[in-house]
C-alpha cells in the first residue's frame, strides 16, 4: 500500500492525542489527576491539538475534502464513518471534561471515564478501517486494533508523563508509560509474527486464485494491461520502498521502543530528570512514524496478485 504522508501523520499524531485524552481520563477516573487547572488546560490543549492535527492531516488524504462532512452518514456500516463520529464525540466530551477540570480545578471522574472510553474507541475505529480489509492480509487481524490502541495508550502515557513532569509529579505516569510501552511492543511483535505469515496466498489471493486459473501450473504476469502506471499500481501495488524495510524496522524498534524504554527506565529509577521525558516522546513519535510507514509500505494488497506479485 502506498504510505501516504497524510495517513502516517494522521494515525500516529491523532493516536498520541487520543492516547493522551485516554490517559488524562483514566487519571481522573482513578482520582490520580492533580488538582491543577493549568495541567487541565495544557494537557487538554495538547491532547485536542494533537487529535485535531491528525484529523486535519487525514482530510488532506481526501481528493474532495469539501465533502468530508458526508463521512458522518454511514456510521451503521462504515468504520471510517464511525471513527469520524467517535473522534468528534471524544473531542467534545473531552473538551467538557478538560474545561470542567480547568474551571473547577478538579478532574471530573465520570467525564474522565467517558473521555477515556471514547478515545480508546476512536483509536479502535481507526484501526478497524485497516483491520477490516480482507484485501490486505497483514492488516486483517485483531492484532491490528490491539496494537493501534496500545501504541496510542503508550504514546499517550508518555505524553501524559511528559506534561506531568512540569507539575513535579510524573514518575508514576512514567511507570504507567513504561507498562504500556512494553504492552504495545509486545502487541506489535505479535502483529509482525502474524504479518510474516499473512501472505496473499493464504488470503486466497494468489495469482491463480485471482484469475481463476487454478490447477494449471504457476502463473506469472506476462503483460500488465498498460505499459504505463495507474491509480491501482500507485495506491495498492506499491513496492518502491520495500527494500528499505529492514532498515526502517530497526529505526522503528530503536526509536519507538528501545530508546523510550531506556529513558523511561532511567527516569523511573531516578537516573534522569522527568522533564526530559518530552524528548523521549519526540523520539518515540519518530519511531511510530517509521512503524506506520512500514505498516503501509509493507502491506500487500490482493490487487497485487493481478500485477504478478506473490
Amino acid at each position, binding site marked *: 500500500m502506498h504510505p501516504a504522508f497524510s495517513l502516517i501523520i494522521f494515525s500516529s499524531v491523532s493516536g498520541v492525542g487520543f492516547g493522551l485524552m485516554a490517559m488524562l481520563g483514566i487519571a481522573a477516573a482513578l482520582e490520580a489527576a492533580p488538582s491543577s487547572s493549568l495541567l487541565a488546560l495544557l494537557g487538554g490543549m495538547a491532547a485536542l491539538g494533537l487529535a485535531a492535527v491528525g484529523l486535519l492531516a487525514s482530510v488532506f488524504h481526501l481528493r474532495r475534502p469539501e465533502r468530508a462532512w458526508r463521512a458522518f*452518514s454511514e456510521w451503521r456500516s462504515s468504520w471510517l464513518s464511525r471513527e469520524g463520529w467517535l473522534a468528534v464525540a471524544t473531542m467534545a466530551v473531552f473538551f467538557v471534561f478538560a474545561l470542567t477540570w480547568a474551571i473547577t480545578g478538579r478532574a471530573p471522574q465520570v467525564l474522565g471515564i467517558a473521555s477515556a472510553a471514547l478515545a480508546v474507541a476512536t483509536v479502535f475505529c481507526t484501526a478497524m478501517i485497516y483491520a477490516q480489509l480482507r484485501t490486505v492480509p497483514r492488516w486483517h487481524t485483531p492484532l491490528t486494533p490491539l496494537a493501534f490502541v496500545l501504541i496510542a495508550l503508550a504514546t499517550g502515557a508518555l505524553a501524559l508523563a511528559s506534561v506531568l513532569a512540569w507539575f513535579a509529579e510524573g514518575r508514576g505516569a512514567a511507570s504507567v508509560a513504561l507498562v504500556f510501552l512494553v504492552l504495545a511492543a509486545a502487541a506489535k511483535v505479535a502483529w509482525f509474527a502474524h504479518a510474516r505469515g499473512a501472505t496473499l496466498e493464504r488470503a486466497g489471493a494468489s495469482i491463480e486464485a485471482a484469475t481463476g486459473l487454478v490447477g494449471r501450473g504457476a502463473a506469472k504476469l506476462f503483460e500488465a494491461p498498460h505499459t504505463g502506471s495507474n491509480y491501482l499500481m500507485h495506491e495498492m501495488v506499491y513496492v518502491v520502498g520495500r527494500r528499505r524495510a529492514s532498515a526502517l524496522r530497526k529505526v522503528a524498534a530503536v526509536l519507538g521502543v528501545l530508546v523510550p524504554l531506556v529513558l523511561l527506565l532511567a527516569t523511573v529509577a531516578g537516573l534522569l530528570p522527568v522533564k526530559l521525558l518530552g524528548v523521549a516522546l519526540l523520539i518515540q513519535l519518530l519511531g511510530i512514524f517509521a512503524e506506520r510507514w512500514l505498516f503501509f509500505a509493507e502491506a500487500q494488497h490482493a490487487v497485487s496478485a493481478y500485477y504478478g506479485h506473490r
Partner: protein
Amino acid sequence: MTTLPPEPQKKLGLVIDLDTCVGCHACAVACKEWNTQGYGAPLSDQDPYGDDPSGTWLNRIHSYEVKPEAGPAQLIHFPRSCLHCDDAPCVTVCPTGASYKRAEDGIVLVNEDACMGCGLCAWACPYGAREMDGSAGVMKKCTLCVDRIDNENLPPEDREPACVRTCPTRARHFGDLNDPESDVSKLVAARGGVDLMPEQGTRPVNKYLPPRAREAAPFSASCDAGSATQEAPVPTGRLAWLDRALARLD
C-alpha cells in the same frame, strides 16, 4: 446506503470467456470511449502525450503465462473489471454512502456527488475494480453501462454494456445471473464458470469461464525420437491408394 440491500431479485453481471479472449483490448477501449462521456465524471487522462501517460479505465486486460508441468507456457488473457459482488466490501466501507449496490439489479455504483475521494472502497476491493479519477477526484468503476442497458434512446439490441457490444471474439456475455434460465447462467453451468478469489468472501456476480485444455507441441525434437507410435496405413506399393482412388473415378 452503505449497507447492502437484501439479496436482489436480479443480479446483472458479465460472464467472461477466458477460452476465447485474445487480449485485444477492444472491450477496454470501448468502455473508456463510452463511459468518458457517460455516467458521472469523464475518465480523464494525465500526461497523455508525455513521459508517464496514465488515465482512468474501468476495464483492463492483463495477460499471464501459465507454466504447466510439461511443455511451454500457455498465454491467457484476462479482462479485469468490477464483479458486482453480492457481498461487496467496497459498499460497506464507504463512509459517505456514495458507494452503493442497487436493490433492483445488484449493480454496484458510485454516487459521485457524494464521493469525497477517500479511496477506502478501492482498498476494500480485491479485484482492483475501482480507480480514482485523476482529475475529478471521485471514484470511478464499471457501471455495467447503467446508461445503456435500459436506455430508450438506444435500439434494443444495443442495450448492453459497451464492452459486450464490441467484443470481437464474443468472449463477453451480459445477463441476469440470478435467473438459472438465462443464457449467462446456462453458460456458467455448462462451462464451469468460476468466482475469482472466493476466499475473499465477496460472492462476485461476474463469472469467468476457464480456458479449455490446450495442446502445445513440445519443442525438443529429441524427446520424441523413436516414439512415433501410430504408423500411417501405408498401402502396399507407394501409391496403391492412388490406383484405387483413380479407379473410383471411372
